[in-house]
């Protein structure tokens, strides 16, 4: 197999470690928030937004979408948008 030349200006280890730290701290904070017994409605939007941020961090840095040609990002995000539209439409019934 040939080596992939795409995304070779790869992210350094300290950036990887920083992303990991953010992922762990956010997840720990989320688990902590669920134990406080706050009204569920106010947290739902926050949790959904945070999961999007975490997913974007993994895709952008660990899957190298930040460095790779944007077509990979389109391939990944397009079905996700279609899916969100589908779930929204399903929720109307």
């Amino acid at each position: 197999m040939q080596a992939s030349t795409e995304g070779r200006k790869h992210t350094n280890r300290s950036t990887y470690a920083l992303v990991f730290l953010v992922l762990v701290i956010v997840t720990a904070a989320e688990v902590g928030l669920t134990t406080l017994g706050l009204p569920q409605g106010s947290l739902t939007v926050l949790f959904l937004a945070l999961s999007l941020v975490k997913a974007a961090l993994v895709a952008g840095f660990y899957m190298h979408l930040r460095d790779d040609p944007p077509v990979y990002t389109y391939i990944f995000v397009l079905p996700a948008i279609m899916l969100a539209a589908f779930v929204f439409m399903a929720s109307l019934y």
Partner: protein
Amino acid sequence: MAAHEAGMTHKSEFRAGRQLGLNHVKLGMWLFIASEVMFFGGLIATFLKYKLALPTNEAAHLDVTLVGANTFLLLTSSFTLVLALAGLRDGKRGAFLRNLLFTVLLGALFLAGQGYEFSLLYAEGVTLSSSLFGSTFFTLTGFHGLHVLIGVVWALVLIVRGTRGAYSADNDLGIEIFGLYWHFVDIVWIVLFTLIYLI
């Protein structure tokens, strides 16, 4: 001049199996991941539909702290995997194989944690056939677990091939492709953790 250079680049890319200016194997993996988004999307939509339409108190049996710890394992496994690829690209073979092994161990621990969670739920009467919640929950998390299991086996194969010298700084595509799969499975879990356990 610039056009000439671009033409040459395209020609050499073509010869290297990158007719679109993209690596075909990598493109194929991303297309597979796109299909996986729809696969998990169907399962997630079904789970959410019943969660919203037919609320049940069975969700109270879910242990957020236990699964939070399990989530930590999977996030860590993604981190060790990027370190493995970085090690390989820097020619540090020991770091590459060691971090790949950590990834396997963390993935296996995640599966053990999920098995433990499932056993607790079964003991409390939440089963695959106990209710629509049980059916959709176990189908969704079970298929994710199956993906982790496939990833663990795949990574073990990579380790065996790696010890035989199959990968190097100039030949890292096999590891990068596996990375795309593994990190995607991690992203699916990030979403599932929020939709099933947090909200």
